[in-house]
């Protein structure tokens, strides 16, 4: 056996995380700000009031800055797949090929065509066509998110595929099973809708800055009115879709759910941890109390996971030991899964040898064993149950950061909406400061959500069938380390460029009404 280079795995993961997190600074603002500016232009279209055109155009300008700096940053992830994650790329190639090709074609043409009309076409097309172009630009951006999220959801719950041992690739058996898996649908809506909240926080924060500077009062108050309604809608719907995601995680990724809750010993009628401090250094097989202290909502985890207040929710120890009841029969222990994984892996090796030797009978027998145990193929790489457990504290705290900040934003938007409806917001500088200082919190909320999703599913690149250690390329850790720092420098420079251009445009403010400036 070749020992997996843990340092290589860590650097490859770190580089991917860095790139994805950087990419994710831009995407949610594109989606959220896109919706808000489209609503503003819709108001302009319906009312004919020029102030809404001016308002929409200013936010389109910031949308453009964000879009320009962020565009193509996701392509770097593709580079990394090919270089650092070649086993993974080969293994899943046929699953991702179709959705990503559709994304490339449809989204590119939608965005490239209509973004130009959105910026250059104010006086060249009718108001209706311009409005349609704005919505189609945002629609194209959202469609881009759809396909990459379908791909991500497939990695969390590999549905609609079959493994072909001849090519050593997963092949799509049902496009619709991949595209419409409940995991994909929940992930798409949760991700897109939560991005609306980030856009709303951004608009409310920047508008508050104008009020604090005693500038652009009407513009700022109008912008805030739209932003808080989008923000409230976004958070409420994010909770609905988040609940759906949680339900899917309970069913398909119980280890992730256990990590999110720091739950080592499950049971019936399990409570949802509202706040807690975990015991540092806690291991799955020791006798330490997992929590130094905790506050919980009784029986809520059981309800959220299974829609039954008294249902059983497995903890990490239950998942390790197995034996509890599931709809498919008694749960397997991790050791049993490792055994099955090893049978599957040995069968793949034997199939390969038998095929080369033209030994059809032996190949057929190996293939049968492979197919019977393929669901646990990835466990073959583990030496002990500990290898199958994610970083519990990181997932646990990231989940609480996301949920607590989401609650904070709901409260903030409701308060701002109240003050705004009573025409008091312009005279409430403390609330304007809160809005302004909350912009980074919106990004932290969004990033925390991805930490829960991606760290929570570790060690899997593809749930149950390919761990990250087997997914990486056989390259040197030093080369990945080098490119990690190259990216770090590149991303930092780009981020500084974005922030400086963005701040310059914010300081310049919306164009004056009598300027009639259509230039971009």
């Amino acid at each position, binding site marked *: *056996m*070749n*020992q*997996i280079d*843990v340092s290589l795995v860590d650097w490859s993961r770190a580089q991917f995380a860095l790139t994805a997190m950087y990419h994710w600074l831009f995407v949610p603002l594109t989606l959220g700000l896109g919706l808000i500016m489209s609503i503003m232009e819709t108001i302009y279209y319906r009312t004919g009031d020029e102030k809404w055109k001016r308002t929409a155009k200013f936010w389109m300008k910031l949308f*453009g800055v964000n879009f*320009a*700096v962020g*565009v*193509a940053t996701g*392509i*770097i992830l593709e*580079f*990394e797949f*090919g*270089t*650092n994650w*070649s*086993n993974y*790329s*080969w*293994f899943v190639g046929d699953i991702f090929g179709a959705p990503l090709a559709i994304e490339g074609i449809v989204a590119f043409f939608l965005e490239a065509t209509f973004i*130009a*009309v959105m*910026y*250059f*076409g104010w006086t*060249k*097309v*009718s108001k209706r066509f311009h409005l349609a172009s704005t919505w189609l630009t945002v629609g194209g951006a959202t469609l881009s998110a759809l396909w990459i999220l379908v791909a991500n959801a497939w990695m969390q719950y590999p549905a609609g595929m079959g493994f072909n041992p*001849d*090519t*050593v*690739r997963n092949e799509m058996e049902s496009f619709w099973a991949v595209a419409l898996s409940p995991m994909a649908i929940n992930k798409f809506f949760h991700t897109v809708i939560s991005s609306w909240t980030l856009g709303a926080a951004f608009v409310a924060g920047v508008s508050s800055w104008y009020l604090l500077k005693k500038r652009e009062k009407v513009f700022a108050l109008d912008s805030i009115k739209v932003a808080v309604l989008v923000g409230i809608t976004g958070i409420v719907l994010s909770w609905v879709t988040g609940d759906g995601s949680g339900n899917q995680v309970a069913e398909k990724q119980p280890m992730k759910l256990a990590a999110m809750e720091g739950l080592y010993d499950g049971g019936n009628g399990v409570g949802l941890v509202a706040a807690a401090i975990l015991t540092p250094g806690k291991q799955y097989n020791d006798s330490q109390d997992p929590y130094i202290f905790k506050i919980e909502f009784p029986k809520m985890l059981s309800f959220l996971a299974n829609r039954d207040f008294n249902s059983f929710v497995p903890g990490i120890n239950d998942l390790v030991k197995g034996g509890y009841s599931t709809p498919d029969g008694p749960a397997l222990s991790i050791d049993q899964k490792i055994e099955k994984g090893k049978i599957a*892996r*040995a069968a*793949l*090796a034997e199939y*390969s040898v038998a095929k080369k030797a033209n030994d059809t009978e032996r190949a057929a027998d190996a293939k049968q064993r492979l197919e019977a145990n393929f669901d646990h193929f990835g466990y*073959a*790489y*583990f*030496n002990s149950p500990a*290898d199958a457990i994610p970083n519990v504290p990181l997932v646990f705290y990231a989940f609480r950061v996301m949920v607590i900040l989401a609650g904070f934003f709901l409260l903030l938007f409701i308060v701002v909406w109240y003050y705004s409806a009573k025409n008091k917001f312009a005279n409430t500088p403390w609330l304007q400061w809160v809005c302004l200082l909350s912009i980074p919190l919106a990004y932290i909320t969004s990033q925390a959500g991805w930490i829960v999703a991606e760290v929570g599913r570790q060690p899997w690149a593809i749930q149950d069938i390919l761990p990250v*250690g*087997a997914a990486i*390329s*056989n*390259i040197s850790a030093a080369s990945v380390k*080098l*490119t990690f720092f*190259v990216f770090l420098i*590149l991303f930092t420079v*780009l981020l500084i*460029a974005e922030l400086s*251009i963005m701040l310059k*445009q914010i300081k310049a403010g919306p164009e004056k009404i009598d300027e009639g*400036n259509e*230039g*971009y």
Partner: protein
Amino acid sequence: MDRIRSFPDFIAMYVEGFKNLTWGKPLWIIILVKLFIMFAILRAFLFPNFLNSRFDTETEKSEYVTKELTTKSY
């Protein structure tokens, strides 16, 4: 230019728009520099496709990945 009535008008809108760029100009410079760095430097020198750079045929690639998947362990 007046309202768009034909495809050439549509193209002219692009041309005119790019000619009259104001605040958008530095953004396009950033986009072009970024794409150059990404494809001409990073892709070309630091991110070769691992399998394509080592193997010519699909069979060779699948045999290599089979070996990788069946011989690795933590």
